[in-house]
């Protein structure tokens, strides 16, 4: 029984557009999505959000019937529907009991919470909408996908801050390998650009005023983004048996915890996750890698991540290529790992390393082979890093079909 894990569908919703194709075309064309936004209380702040006109009202009648949806669930549903559509698994009996749904979310439905709190604490009202709890709960996106598709297997949310969806994909991979399910619909979603959430990030002093410049001189911090990415994962035998087209493989996963400080990154913890992921995937010694960095653009993350990469690859790092797509779609927190894995897998399949945008010049403390132009690059595997607050690290390895 071959329980290698293959990818048969991918979906993505972000500031780069609705759908993986649109996101990839914009990314490859160096058209970043970071811009000043007009949301209440955040006017003029730099962020990357899906175009509201593309989202509301959801065209899909079945999605409307799920009830009042926080954007968190809507993003996850749209990405999952794209992935399921591409996989061709609609109507397959495995969806009933042999499929898991695992969504990674850093926080719950902030808009739903904050609307309720504004009524109570701002307007002095005493009642809030009856859907406040169901629509804001962090498990809502997972439940909504299962409800829409009639999935009766294991369904839950994983939360590990900015590594949530990388952990979700990795744990889904292990569930398939272990034979607990044949199929997993896994990824992540985040809807963090609400006034309260944004103000919290602002207070931490980690947000850049203008844009995200990973590994660059003059970088001033991260820029928040919203959206989701979901994948359909299957055991190789299962995908073959139903004649599904295979887009690539989720070949390895490494997870570690720094057990250090809440917000300061640690190169040892990062390197530990990288090492475990490489061993798990069995990456050959001479392999050429496309490395999708966590690359937040904060003063602290980037040199720490560069040090972790040097620790793992040494001088050999220079034959690989590093990309940092947060420069285009912002930091999507719980969704980030899945969005970056999807875009990285597309880059691997296309043989093209997309440019890291907004670069002002090399930082000697970030000595890595960073792709700045956007050009053809043939790699054997994708290594996708997610290093979260809490010192929670997850690294995914993807290979070609």
């Amino acid at each position, binding site marked *: 029984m071959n329980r290698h894990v293959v990818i048969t569908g991918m979906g993505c919703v972000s500031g780069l557009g609705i759908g993986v194709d649109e996101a990839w075309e914009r990314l490859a064309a160096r058209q970043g999505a970071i811009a000043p936004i007009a949301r209440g209380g955040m006017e003029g702040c730099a962020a990357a959000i899906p175009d509201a006109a593309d989202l509301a009202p959801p065209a899909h*009648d079945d999605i*409307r*019937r*799920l*009830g*009042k949806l926080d954007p968190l669930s809507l993003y996850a549903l749209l990405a999952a529907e794209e992935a399921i559509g591409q996989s061709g698994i609609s109507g397959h009996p495995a969806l009933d009991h042999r499929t898991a749904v695992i969504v990674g979310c850093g926080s719950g439905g902030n808009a739903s919470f904050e609307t309720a709190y504004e009524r109570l604490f701002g307007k002095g009202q005493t*009642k809030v*909408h*009856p*859907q406040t709890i*169901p629509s804001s709960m962090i498990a809502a996106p997972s439940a909504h996908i299962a409800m829409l598709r009639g999935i009766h297997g294991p369904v839950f949310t994983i939360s590990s801050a900015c590594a949530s969806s990388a952990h979700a994909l990795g744990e889904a991979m292990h569930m398939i390998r272990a034979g607990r399910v044949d199929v997993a619909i896994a990824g992540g979603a985040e809807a963090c650009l609400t006034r309260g959430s944004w103000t919290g990030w602002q207070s931490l002093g980690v947000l850049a005023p203008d844009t995200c410049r990973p590994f660059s001189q003059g970088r001033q911090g991260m820029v928040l983004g919203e959206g989701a990415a979901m994948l359909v994962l299957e055991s190789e035998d299962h995908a073959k048996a139903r004649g599904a087209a295979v887009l690539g493989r989720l070949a390895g996963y490494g997870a570690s915890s720094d057990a250090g400080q809440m917000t300061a990154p640690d190169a040892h913890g990062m390197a530990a996750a990288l090492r475990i992921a490489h061993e798990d995937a069995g990456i050959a010694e001479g392999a050429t890698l496309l490395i999708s960095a966590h690359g937040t653009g904060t003063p602290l993350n980037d040199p720490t991540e560069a040090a972790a990469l040097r620790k793992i690859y040494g001088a050999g790092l220079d034959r690989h290529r590093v990309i940092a797509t947060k420069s285009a779609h912002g930091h999507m927190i719980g969704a980030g790992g899945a969005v970056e894995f999807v875009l990285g897998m597309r880059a691997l399949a296309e043989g093209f390393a997309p440019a890291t945008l907004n670069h002002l010049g090399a930082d000697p403390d970030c000595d890595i082979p960073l792709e700045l132009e956007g050009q053809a690059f043939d790699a054997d595997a994708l290594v996708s890093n997610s290093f979260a607050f809490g010192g929670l690290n997850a690294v995914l390895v993807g290979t070609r079909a």
Partner: protein
Amino acid sequence: MNDEEILALIAQETGLPRQDLDMDAPLATLDISSIDMVSLLFEVEDRYGVKIEPDQIAPEMTLGQLVRRIRDKTEA
């Protein structure tokens, strides 16, 4: 509050397409969940200041009767 406004609110809170809202249909056949009904009554109270208890809405009522109940309350 006219019938069209009430129907728009029902469509919003239940997710049912407006064209599926048949005034002669009994509520039981429209597949409106209890949470959606509670949400609808919350919105009516929030916007128009009139309270209708969920137990005043029987499943055998038609949609038209529900709309009239809401309209009569808000016009009283």
